[in-house]
């Protein structure tokens, strides 16, 4: 097992480097100039002075060749004028960049460290994503089991239609409908925006989280339950299940004890990849419900062409996806020894 883990971890390094390189390269292809956005304050009403632009670009190395900008971001050596003496810097700030654990400061709020802000944003997004996944599994697993056990019945067909409709609903639209239905214009059950403030009770936090969590999770009902259904149908047709039935075990035990464990395997590995996707992909839900999370941070960074924010969020998304896949592979290897010996 250990050689397998090490092999996977070794692959992790070039993958991560590739992610940072691709993110950086793609960012360069996006039109718009961080210096112009920063100096104009995002308004055509503010004149932008050419000398100021030059100073700004020099301060952020935006006037340097792309390879130098990339290596400066990657680290561990700081390549700016205050950077490492090996690269002509003054030595005041020799090390920096991703490899030295430095995600830089935001361009628009230079006193804010990107890593600190990422922490604050993740503190919003991660609990929501976990809750959404939990809700997704709580709904999808029983649905999938019932659909598998009653495959081909009216229940199976109706549930497929409903779930597919859910799957197709655009999040922004569903979010607005949820607000209309459960906010003051409808039932008035839940707050429609934001998080509960500091000092809020657990109940208040819960009521604020209900609509975003539902909005984040309903899309996963379909694919999780279909996975569950497919896995369960396959398992139910396997020899050992037939044996269990032949032994005269009640169907409840056959499904709940013998078949379920094996049928859950695909869902276990799905969890590892679905979680990072929820972290990075929550931008629409975070916008509709006004949640200052990770997805919105990435989006705001892109709008403002804050390169360091975009690179940090894409890199983090990449790391989480890699980790998710790694965990998924490891789980598969643990559960199926044939994989680790392949």
């Amino acid at each position, binding site marked *: 097992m250990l050689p397998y883990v090490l092999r996977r971890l070794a692959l992790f390094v070039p993958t991560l480097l590739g992610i940072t390189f691709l993110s950086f390269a793609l960012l360069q292809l996006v039109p718009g100039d961080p210096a112009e*956005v920063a100096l104009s304050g995002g308004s055509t009403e503010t004149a932008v002075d050419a000398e100021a632009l030059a100073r700004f670009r020099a301060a952020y190395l935006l006037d340097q060749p792309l390879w130098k900008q990339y290596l400066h971001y990657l680290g561990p050596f700081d390549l700016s004028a205050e950077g490492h003496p090996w690269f002509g810097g003054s030595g005041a700030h020799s090390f920096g960049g991703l490899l030295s654990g430095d995600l830089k400061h935001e361009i628009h709020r*230079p006193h804010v460290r990107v890593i600190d802000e990422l922490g604050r944003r993740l503190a919003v997004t991660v609990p929501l994503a976990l809750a959404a996944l939990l809700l997704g599994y709580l709904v999808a697993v029983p649905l999938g089991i019932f659909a598998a056990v009653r495959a081909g019945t009216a229940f199976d067909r109706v549930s497929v239609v409903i779930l597919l409709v859910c799957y197709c609903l655009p999040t922004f639209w569903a979010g607005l409908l949820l607000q209309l239905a459960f906010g*003051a*214009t409808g039932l008035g059950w839940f707050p*429609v925006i934001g*998080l509960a403030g500091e000092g809020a009770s657990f109940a208040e936090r819960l009521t604020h989280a209900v609509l975003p969590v539902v909005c984040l999770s309903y899309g996963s009902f379909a694919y999780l339950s279909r996975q569950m259904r497919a896995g369960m149908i396959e398992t139910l047709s396997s020899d050992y299940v037939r044996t269990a039935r032949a032994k005269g075990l009640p169907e409840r035990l056959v499904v709940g004890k013998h078949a379920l464990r094996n049928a859950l395997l695909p869902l276990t590995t799905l969890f590892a990849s679905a979680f990072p996707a929820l972290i990075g992909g929550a931008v629409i839900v975070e916008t509709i419900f006004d949640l*200052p999370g990770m997805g919105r941070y990435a989006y705001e960074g892109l709008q403002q062409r804050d390169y360091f924010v975009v690179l940090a969020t894409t890199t983090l998304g990449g790391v989480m996806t890699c980790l998710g896949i790694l965990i998924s592979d490891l789980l598969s290897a643990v559960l199926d020894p044939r994989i680790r010996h392949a």
Partner: protein
Amino acid sequence: MKLTLALAVLVLGGGIGWGSVRQAPQVPAASAAPAEDKETLGPGPAPLDAWHPAHATPVQPAYGGTLRVHTEALPPNLCLPLLNNTNARNMLYELHETLVQRDWESWQFNPDLAASWEVEDTLVTKDGVAHHGRVEEEEGQYVLAGTALAKDEVLRLERGTVFTFHLRPDVRWHDGHPFDAEDVLFSWRIAQNPEVRCDWVRQYYGRVERAEVVDAHTVRFFFKEQYFNALGFFVDHLTILPRHLYDLRDPDHPRHRANASNEECAKEINENAHNTEWVGLGPYKLSSYSQQGVEAERFAEYFDPAHGGYLDKIVWRHIANDEAAFQALVNGELDFTLRISSDRYFGEAMATPTFTQRFCKGYYYLGAFNYTPWNLRRPLFADLNVRKALAQAFDAESFRDTVAHGLAKLPTGPQCYFGPSYEHGVQHLPFDLARAGELLAEAGWYDRDGDGLLDKDGAPFEFEMLIQSGNTAGDISARMYQESLAKIGVRLKVTALDNASYFKRINERDFDAGNQSWSVDATENDPMQLWGSASAASGGSNHAGVIDPKVDALIARGARELDDDKRHALWRELHRYLYENVQPYLYRDAPPRKFALSQALRGVQFFKITPGYALRRWYYPAGTSGTRATREPLEPLEQKK
């Protein structure tokens, strides 16, 4: 019943929402007559609670309560010299003060941090020496401080160039530190350090040649030359910073270093945590800044308690999505939003009892207008007839009556429609496609090859208009314009760009036509930034590229003219000349700001001066839960700590 309603929304609303999402923006049908236009030209008293259904019933103000105001974008920082940000400016109206202030209604300058001020002149003699003081003009000579100088000894006289401010001695920063003249001087001096990222204010700060501290509570500014809006500089541009928190060389700074370099001092300003954790001088003191918004509570030691606000707390709630903001308002999570579209304003949601029983809606005009700049550097737009034809091909009245539901002015010039410098004698060119075709033919554009497009020198008449994605009104106007132009053989390509890409192309002059807004103050505005030839270079605000000696001359004369009436006449002359002889813009409309406001709030007035309202004047009526009859001093800072 409500459950049924909610389910109906979920089920039936789908069809409506889905349709609206998938369709291209539609031009609505002309609405019924717009609501009564309550606006008048020029300064004057603003009616109290004009939009409140019970405005005729006076109420007694109470102290206390919280006001939750919507802000669609959270400013990256609140330090205005570092960032020209409208939302930050709106917050600083309550969190900060200026040396003088402009009265909301009379538009006259009033004392604020400065209890009083004197204005003097500069007289430069031929030996190059500048003398300052009040200069009287007598026959053939100037008299300065009792000394007569023959006019032929004088090189130039600059009126109103020396301002001496006598500061109030009782003012404290929000952290309790006393405010004094050194703060003011430091705040102006930051622009002299090239490493400080305050480039947008340098052009304004640069009008001041030097400044000096006379004593702890007296500070003097010397302008380079006479300028009509010199006093306005202290209202609109000079943001006073707490020196003890921003200046490393200040002995009171927590990390004081007398020999700190310019770079270190600049870094201290650029990256100062107080850029967001603002320490100001206003009646409200910042208590938190987060992605959720900005919160402020009434400052117990505000120097002018009588005008220190009624509310205990103001929250600027950050909600990026306008639809979510409206839902939050209806849900009781907001009290005031200005992000109301015309469709929303005249739509069903604001006519339901859920809304009308608890909120009121209304609108007021500021100086903002929407326009399309032509890039005059491009040969296609070089001919005045072509630009006039393009103006006559846009049906501005139809746009106003349909998209804006009648709520917009159709401006023809860059000064505020309601201000004294706007030339109302200039009429919007009428929508007339036939005339537009004639003008284009006069300019040599007609369909030679029969392909339906006008052409000249082998090239068809086609151009690109950039719009900012997400700007629905801009998108609709561009599509309407596209259809009109197609009828006269002109092909318009509309390109939607995100803001950063849009700014880049506009700033680099890589465009044919744009679609943008400009904000002007109701009082009057220096046309230099928009029309001066010096601003035509890359990065300047003269995006159209107007380079015209007459325009420059009028701007220069107006800038030096201290007589209000004469100067307003110059601005009006400039307005007429630009519209009739230059036509650098296609003026679209000047819409009002539309708002929704909780009926629980009273004391609400709307003004023509930005931002158009003063939260410190708003209050809850006596008897409202959580309020009290007296101000009751809040806990002093030291005790609170």
